[in-house]
């Protein structure tokens, strides 16, 4: 305060003596200095205080210092797990009502150390893996620290390894959790043991060289009966089968976990797994075997011989694609069963096995997130991840499409189509378009999207009288995307998007376009076709509207499409494309072409021969220059969209659709669509 007073006192005395220029100079200087000081102040003090408080809070947080909870010997024991539990009987979905993004909310109880009456700890407070697992959950989108909003609860009591647990006391500890309620909506992780954690990184490099052994067994503790059968297999098939066992003659300092032996030959484990095409996973004391994880990692195809073993995440992972399950009874035939698998399928399985490992098993984090995702899928089945997303390796996922309109259906002609005319204020031309389109037999409704907020549409009496319902929708903003909004008024599956200046299409042409759409209901079916080309000099995409032999886009100034794409355009358009289009007032048609091609993987269908269109591209007020800027803008759109989609989804084709008898030597009056292609 004092400073500013001083300034105020000195200020007026100073100013009259200076020229105006200087005064401005000083005021500017002072304000700059002042601002600079404030900024430095902020930078100096703000982060420091945060950091120090952070340090201070973490300082206290060591696992050894967590609060101790004493469990009285007579504290309640929870009921035994109900084996008949199903998702709908033992899980309360109504706790998951808070779901902003169709994601369950997971709460983690804070860490406590449980001791019994005599002060002896119930278990190891927390293991490294469980800590990693909880950290992964806490870092994910699922986490919430608000217990009232959570639908899934994860106790911080570590039960990963049953062998180290004191069962009764752990159960008591679980029972006293604040929301335990017989374990409803609680998730316990009881992990199948993973291999020794310190792998050789060389393993991470996938190998392509042929594998030496066809079938390998690397488990150490096997029942003698199994070992006998494996031995018989080896005797029968010789070199291609390798059965390994524990090493007996190793010196003390070698870690026996990392070695396997066959007679006197010593092999490094798990590296040896990379040498085999198939690796046996046999039943042990527990069904789940650590070796499965090692085998997957080595890209060896697991041969699971353990009846009634539920493979991990089998609810969502298609293990048929990555493993061979052989009944224990058929163990003797395993070699011939495997021999009958074609080489191509084996390679596929190897890739799949490795992909499963990378995606779902390679870290505690991956396992935790996959588990939560499965539970999430059960709770929000309509937002669940698809089979393809779970199972297809990224290479397939990138190239493949799962067309939402995949069924080979030909919609009935009787339904007709809804024409949507986007207009601003060209009333005269609009009325002509309405009159022309209304002549098309299959038109069932006409929707005018009035994009002009400053002007009301003409009075009802002025509109042309047509035989189908005509509705005018007034929009709130003049945006191009209004053309593709899924209006409730659209009752038919087919939509004809048409500009208010497209008056040159004949009724035959429009009707034929609709017929073509019925045969290709998952494609854009349009009249003027365009092409995208790769410009080698500029190394980017270029828009082309010349007479070409190919076509990859159709203009939506006149195009039929399924109304589902309206929904996709409005709600599922990737990236900022929708806003970009509205901001530039251009390229909504290119965006639609990208969207449809990307989701269906199919090309557009151009119908009927080329004719002179009165379109923005051709009506240019002063021809060439405007035309050229237009082309540049459109090329920019293509490049922008390709970068947002991450790929070029447009498909180039060399065909267009014409009526069967188009230009054939046949009496015109016998043709269904005679009036096609007239200029």
């Amino acid at each position, binding site marked *: 305060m*004092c*400073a*500013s007073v*001083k300034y105020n006192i000195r200020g007026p005395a100073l100013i009259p003596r*200076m020229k105006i220029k*200087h005064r401005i100079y*000083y005021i500017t*200087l002072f304000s700059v200095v002042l601002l600079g*000081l*404030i900024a430095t*102040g902020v930078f100096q*003090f*703000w982060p420091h*205080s945060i950091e120090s408080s*952070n340090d201070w*809070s*973490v300082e206290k*947080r*060591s*696992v050894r210092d967590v609060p101790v909870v004493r469990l009285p010997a007579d504290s309640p024991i929870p009921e035994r797990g109900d084996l008949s539990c*199903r998702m709908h009987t033992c899980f309360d979905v109504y706790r998951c009502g808070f779901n902003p993004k169709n994601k369950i909310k997971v709460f983690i109880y804070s860490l406590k150390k449980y001791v019994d009456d005599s002060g002896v700890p119930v278990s*190891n407070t927390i*293991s*490294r893996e469980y*800590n990693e697992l909880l950290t992964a959950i806490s870092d994910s989108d699922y*986490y919430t*620290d608000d217990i009232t909003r959570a639908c899934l609860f994860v106790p911080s009591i570590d039960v990963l390894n049953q062998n180290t647990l004191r069962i009764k006391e752990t159960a008591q500890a679980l029972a006293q959790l604040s929301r335990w309620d017989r374990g409803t909506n609680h998730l316990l992780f009881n992990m199948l043991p993973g291999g020794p954690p310190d792998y050789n990184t060389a393993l991470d490099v996938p190998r392509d060289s042929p594998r030496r052994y066809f079938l390998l067994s690397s488990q*150490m503790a*096997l*029942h003698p009966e199994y070992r006998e059968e494996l031995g018989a297999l080896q005797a029968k098939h010789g070199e291609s089968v390798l059965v390994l066992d524990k090493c007996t003659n190793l010196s003390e300092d070698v870690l026996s976990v990392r070695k396997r032996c066959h007679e006197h030959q010593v092999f490094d484990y798990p590296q040896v797994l990379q040498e085999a095409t198939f690796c046996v996973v046999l039943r*042990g004391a527990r069904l789940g075997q*650590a070796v499965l994880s090692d085998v997957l990692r080595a890209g060896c195809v697991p041969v699971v011989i353990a009846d009634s073993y539920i493979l991990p995440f089998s609810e969502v992972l*298609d293990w048929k*694609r990555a493993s061979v399950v052989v009944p*224990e009874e058929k163990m003797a035939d395993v070699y011939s069963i495997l021999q009958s698998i*074609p080489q191509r399928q084996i390679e596929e399985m190897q890739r799949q096995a490795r992909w499963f490992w990378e995606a779902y098993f390679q870290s505690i984090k991956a396992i935790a997130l996959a588990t939560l995702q499965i539970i999430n899928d059960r*709770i929000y089945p*309509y*937002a669940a991840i698809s*089979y393809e997303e779970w199972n297809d390796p990224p290479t397939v996922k990138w190239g*493949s499409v799962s067309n939402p309109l*995949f069924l*080979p*259906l*030909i919609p009935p002609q009787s339904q007709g189509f809804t024409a949507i005319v986007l207009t601003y204020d060209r009333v005269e031309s609009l009325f002509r378009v309405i009159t022309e389109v209304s002549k098309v037999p299959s038109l069932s409704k006409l929707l005018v999207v009035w994009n002009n907020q400053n002007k009301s549409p003409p009075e009802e009496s002025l509109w042309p009288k047509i035989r189908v319902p005509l509705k005018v929708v007034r929009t709130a903003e003049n945006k191009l995307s209004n053309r593709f909004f899924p209006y409730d008024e*659209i009752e038919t599956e087919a939509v004809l998007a048409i500009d208010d200046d497209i008056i040159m299409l004949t009724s035959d042409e429009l009707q034929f376009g609709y*017929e073509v759409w019925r*045969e290709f209901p998952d494609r854009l079916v349009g009249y003027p076709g365009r092409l995208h080309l790769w410009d080698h000099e500029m190394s980017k995409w270029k828009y082309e509207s010349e*007479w070409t032999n190919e076509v990859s886009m159709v203009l939506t100034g006149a195009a039929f499409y399924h109304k*589902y794409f309206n929904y996709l355009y409005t709600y599922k358009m990737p990236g900022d494309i929708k806003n970009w289009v509205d901001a530039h007032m251009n390229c909504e048609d290119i965006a639609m072409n990208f969207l449809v091609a990307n989701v269906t993987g199919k090309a557009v269908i151009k119908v009927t021969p080329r004719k002179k269109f009165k379109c923005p591209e051709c009506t240019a007020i002063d021809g060439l220059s405007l035309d050229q800027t237009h082309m540049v803008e459109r090329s920019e759109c293509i490049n922008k969209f390709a970068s947002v989609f991450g790929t070029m989804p447009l498909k180039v*084709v*060399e*065909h*267009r*659709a*014409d009526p*069967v008898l188009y230009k054939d030597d046949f009496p015109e009056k*016998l043709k*269904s*669509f005679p009036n096609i292609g007239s200029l």
Partner: protein
Amino acid sequence: MQSCRRKSLWLALLASWLLGLLGILPLLRLAVPTGPRAGAPQGWPRWLDAELLQSFLQPGELPEDAPQLRRAPRGGSCDWGACFDTSKCRSGGFKVFVYPAAEPTSEMQHKILASIEGSRYHTVSPTEACLHLLTLDAPAGACSLVPPKWNGGKNHLVLRLHPASCSGTFQLGWAMVAEASPTVDTFRPGFDVALPLLPEAHPVRGGAPGQLRQHSPHPGAALLALAEERGGWRVAATDSSACPWDGHCEQDHGPEQTHPGAALPNATFCLIPGRRADALRFLQALQPSLGAALLRGYRLDQGGHCSRQEAPTAGAGCPPGDAPHAGPRPASADPVSVGHLLLLSGEGHPYRPREPAFLLQIIQDRILGASAHPSLLWNSPPGALLALPTFSTSPLDFPFYYLQQGSRPAGRFSALIWVGATGQPPLKLIQAVAGSQHCAQILVLWSNDKPPPPSWPETAVPLLVIEGHRKVSARFFPHSAISTDAILSLDAHSSLSTSEVDFAFVVWQSFPERMVGFLTWSHFWDEAQGRWGYTAERVNEFSMVLTSAAFYHRYYHTLFTHSLPKALRRLAEAAPHCVDVLMNFLVAAATKLPPIKVPSGRRHEDASPPRVPGDLGPAARDCIDRVAAGFGHMPLVSSRLRLDPVLFKDPVSVLRKKYRGLEKP
């Protein structure tokens, strides 16, 4: 003046420093919270000693466990490995023996048995069979006989179309049970097979296509239809707010309540309670392909094949009285996806007709083990019954899955020229075809009494003559010499230009699952005679293309040779003209789409007399009707369009056009 200015500068600096220190600092102090900021989630703490924590597995404790004894197979909990002997099926092929029904059987049972007896799996010798089929649908009291060769039920499949008929009369032991709507209590996953409960009028072969004609739900459709106890349907409110998340649905005894036995109302989802009597409704709901929301207690999947998170299971497991989970649809929920999965089950196969066939296919898949159908083949059109695992187990080899697999057809084709009894060596045709840049090889199927000429024209591609096939159906034999996916099927009489071949092949690459041809026929229903007919007169639409010049995928050769029922194969031998019709039926039944016509520059009528309409004798005319009867329905679909090159007959310079050869008048 100068010093004064400097002075004022210093003063100002000092002043601002003071201001900065005294004014801002306390404010900052206030602004900085002392602890972690409230509001943001705290998360799991980062322990200082996280690195020092012990692993849950002690180093001394080996990951390997103590060995365990093998479980003895028990009758009660049979699984595939223990209770089924596959050795016979491997050595002798998959043969099915059907016990003759002792008692008068139901209509449905009769149809199913007849269908199996007509299939390629059937055998009359019980010793040769790998699977013994026994039906248990006789009225109670008449089914106590244990059949001969029962052998504890091993390798037996007991078919029980109606729940609980003949239950408990004798121990089923190791026999598999294919039962309509079994319950989870008795179902042995991976061993038993769940069937849908069929209405008596269910067609055995073919069957009508689903009633669904639309990809997306109609905007006016109700959200939920509930199956009523007496056989009717009740439509619940369209308004999703009736089923809020945290409570039960408000009991809305909506205005509409249909009569018992009435057709399904127009609704997006349909709720079928877990009563046995309502199992029939499941199929009813699938036909128009609604999303079915089931209440618990059902096995839905057919032997575990339809295991994707499909619509039938979308709502499975609601507590009774609640709406299905899908009820409160978020505003942006994908409106078509749910319906679609359903369609597949409705259209594709599992729930549709051909029940005996898919039942056997499921069991054959188990025998094949690793080389069985991948689930993609079961779950996407055309379904596992039309994607033969004997052809390939890789989806990439079939014409149907290119897009799903992110691949595209290769850019080469094999020309297959059939030279019939009157044919001359098609020298001109060979030159025209060999001129195509996409041609990989030419195979001449010489089926003529005269020996083939010793010398053939010099071509850029390998030319191979295959002799000795007399039957017309041999032209669709999957010759091992065919090295490409695409086949151009030709007759010695066909005349094509290189331009036409090139363009047709490029079109085929866009539609690899369809036939792409030049000359067309269309089918029609002959009201006067009450049967199907077909005509080659050029009309405005078509539904078949002639195989005398057509591109298609080589998989259709396998399908033609190995999947056609015996009766249809005999028909093909008897009436040579019929092979065209048969092939078109086969492809249309698999794709449910029309073939594609491309322009032919020449007047083919003049060039190919034997295949022209007027000459069709009565046997040939009859052909389509008999094929339709054999298929059980009419799969052909009509098209009204032809695919032309983009600049076809456009008023531009011919030099701009890529396929100039097509422009000749």
